């Protein structure tokens, strides 16, 4: 069977980097969102106990 450069993907790094970055960004955004929600929940709780 013919082996060699034909049939081998050269490059394609932009796709790889995009895939990894989107994953990282999505996870990071979710972590940031949870952190924000937690601050909000804590704040509500405090105001509850104060009031």
């Amino acid at each position: 069977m013919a082996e060699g450069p034909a049939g081998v993907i050269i490059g394609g790094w932009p796709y790889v980097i995009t895939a990894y970055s989107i994953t990282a960004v999505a996870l990071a955004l979710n972590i940031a969102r949870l952190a924000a929600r937690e601050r909000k929940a804590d704040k509500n709780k405090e105001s509850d106990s104060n009031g």
Partner: protein
Amino acid sequence: MRNVATGIGLLGILLLLVGSYVGLFVAPPERHMGDVQRIMYVHVPTAWIGLLCSTFAMIFAVAYLWTGRNRWDDRLVGALEISVILGGLLLVQGMLWGRVTWGIWWTWDVRLTTSLIMFLLFAGVLALRSFVEEPLRRATWSSVATIIAYVDVPLVYFCVRWFRSLHQVQSSPETVHSSMIIPLRINAFAMLFIAIWLIAWRARIESKSRGAERPPERIEIQGAQNG
């Protein structure tokens, strides 16, 4: 508990960095797919852990219907959100990989179709939650919707074996070179730890905000025990 969960999460992030480094820079390129195959080290763990989280969601939903305890609803939200995030990521990563290797962004192959349906179904449950204000009703309904949505999950996993599809069947240690298995496993564990951490975290937030909106949980537990 809180520190344990955060510890697991940090470990997960660390492992994800290590696994991705190994996958991107240490592991060899694939003989035909070249460097593009490196998407696998994030795509396959996303798929595994995404399916696992939807299984968690289904288990939590059954547990909620069975016991009526709020903590299961808290965990259900966490598991649903992670399933949807990973499900969406799975589709995007798959499109990128498919564009280069298959030559297309999308086709109505069974694996792609059932994965998209799974994403839409679980996102639909989250949408349902956002429309229901009353907590008891919201918890019961999202449990019911989750269980029904879960019907699609076994199909996502097995369809490539049952039906002739464009998507390849599951790989196994025999079909993947040992140098590629290492980053795959590291990232799978990393994604698992991150998912557990995020589910636990989300559950904690949910239980806090629940405490703020309705303190007397005792009544519900009694009701549950009575039937």
